[in-house]
């Protein structure tokens, strides 16, 4: 493979405490790609994402980013890793006591030597990019869910990180807003070359954004498919995978595993 692997997940047993939700998961994320982790509700997508950014330690196995172990590595390299990533949480993760502008300015103030008016200019640019111009002085409680996600995105990319993680960026939004967020993700990926790791189960987003996906399954406790979503939809050997991409409900008995 000529592509450069930014993140390597190897033999990961994921879960909280002793009980593993995912077993023996291995995959790589390459620089500059849009990589989607998908699967039905409760299959461990978000948990996997939290392992990847080092929020929860894996039961066993490893996650390496930039060649350094995210969990076992020393504090310094982990902090450096955190500087290189941005995370958009499911509900935005905005600090409720600060306005949108203050939320976005927070990391810029902390990590750069820029002056106040320069930061204001940057914040205005970023909020305009996510189509929130004019909402600088609103509090998170005063805006809608879709706007919170967009503001969260503006804050996640405040320092233009090399990798952006998205936890369900379009879940619960109307189709138009979802499409707008997808476009934004594509635009940022194309123009800034940011690597995107996205957890989602929105089929439209998956087909629109990703060249490479992995699909997780609750019963199999692991990856049941990896590759181009269009190819998987039509040619996967696994019926669960084909049914998922074609939105066909499973009948109770053959929940998983019956190929053909």
């Amino acid at each position, binding site marked *: 493979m000529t592509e450069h692997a930014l993140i390597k997940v190897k033999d990961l047993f994921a879960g909280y405490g002793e009980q593993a939700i995912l077993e023996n998961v291995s995959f790589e994320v390459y620089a500059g790609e849009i990589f989607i982790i998908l699967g039905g509700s409760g299959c461990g997508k978000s948990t996997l994402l939290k392992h990847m950014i080092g929020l929860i330690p894996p039961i066993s196995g490893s996650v390496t980013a930039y060649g350094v172990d995210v969990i076992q590595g020393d504090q310094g390299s982990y902090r450096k890793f955190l500087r290189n990533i941005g995370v958009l949480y499911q509900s935005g993760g905005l600090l*409720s*006591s600060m306005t949108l*502008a203050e939320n976005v300015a927070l990391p810029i103030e902390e*990590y*750069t*030597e*820029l002056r106040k*008016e*320069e930061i*204001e*200019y*940057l*914040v*205005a*640019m*970023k909020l*305009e*990019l996510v189509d929130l*111009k*004019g*909402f*600088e*002085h609103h*509090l*998170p*409680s005063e805006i809608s869910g879709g706007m919170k996600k967009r503001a969260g995105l503006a804050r996640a990319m405040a*320092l*233009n990180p090399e990798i952006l993680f998205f936890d369900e960026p379009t879940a619960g939004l109307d189709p138009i807003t979802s499409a707008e967020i997808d476009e934004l993700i594509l*635009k940022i990926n*194309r*123009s*800034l*070359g940011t690597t995107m790791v996205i957890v989602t189960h929105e089929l439209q987003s998956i087909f629109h954004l990703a060249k490479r996906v992995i699909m997780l399954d609750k019963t199999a406790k692991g990856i049941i498919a990896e590759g181009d979503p269009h190819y998987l939809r039509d040619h996967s050997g696994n019926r669960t995978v084909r049914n998922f991409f074609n939105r066909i409900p499973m009948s109770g008995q053959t929940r998983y595993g019956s190929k053909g």
Partner: protein
Amino acid sequence: MSDKISECCRLEDVADGERRIRFKGKLDVKNAPAIIRAVFASIEKHPPLRVIADLSDISYLDDFGVLALDRIRKVAAGKGASFAMEGVGPKAAEILALFNFPDSDKSQPAAKRPEPGLLVGIGKATIDQLLDLRFQVAFVGSVLLCCFHLIIHPRSIRIGDTVKSMKKTGVDALPIVSLIGFLLGLIMAFMSSVQLRQFGANIYVASLVALAMVRELGPIITAIIVAGRSGSAFASEIAAMKIAEEVDALYTMGFDVTRFLVAPKIIAAVLMVPLLSIFANLFAILGGLTVGVLMLDLTAGAYMDQTFKSLTPFDFWFGLFKTAFFALVIAWMGCLRGFQARGGAEAVGRATTSAVVSSIFLIILWDSIFAVLLQYWG
């Protein structure tokens, strides 16, 4: 003249007052701030006539780079110099278009929301107070209605929730209330003995501790501890539920929210807090007894005898009544402030603070009222 600022930026003075800024490599968050400062200094020191930003050698550009370009353009304009960009490749053009540079002017961010003037502020505060009052009255009404309902239909009390609340408010607070009571009795006995000993009136330490605790300090101390422990818990629980739309969910499911959330807490507090105050009193007397026996050479029998002699049943019952009333105030304020919460996580904190402060204030206020009433009627 050629002046290298950093690895990624070089200034060149071409003849006829043109200054070229050759960027190289990445124009990003790491390099942009230093470039801005250096170019500023150069332009301030020797103002050129024309500033040319040469982007032909850049490998990466993002909004921090756009910021640098914008700042350079502004400072050049301030010195009367013109600004132009050269060597803008397709990649850079895409970024510049993404951030609307150089067309958009973001030097004027959206106006801050106007701070209200003094008069508007006073008006707003007044209206807020009136709304608060209205809310309180409505809350009183709804709690009273709920009480009538529960008296007529006692089976509709949510026993499970009430018992859980009773455990949290009462049983769990027992160790701390007892300990504080004991220490309080110890301190009172110790402090008063210093004075009373001079008159050989050691035995009156017992009266002092018993009377002070049962009539005044027992109810107040217990109430303040409960306000801090449970009043805050009531307020934060209900406020968090309110913010997470749990209260709305209960309402639309057709539940009487007061009966569901408020009644168990009020019942639990009114039943348990008086019991707690009895424990506080007992342990305070025990504390006094410890000092009396160990330091004042009193016998335990004499001390207890004096204690019972000084107390009347009225003192005891009145203390209990006061504590029950304080408990009502605490549960009341906790729930009320919880329901008033609006906004985000911050609102939960505000509701909690407000609940504890209002409760303690009202406890002291009502205690003074009771003291005055007792003076006239007692």
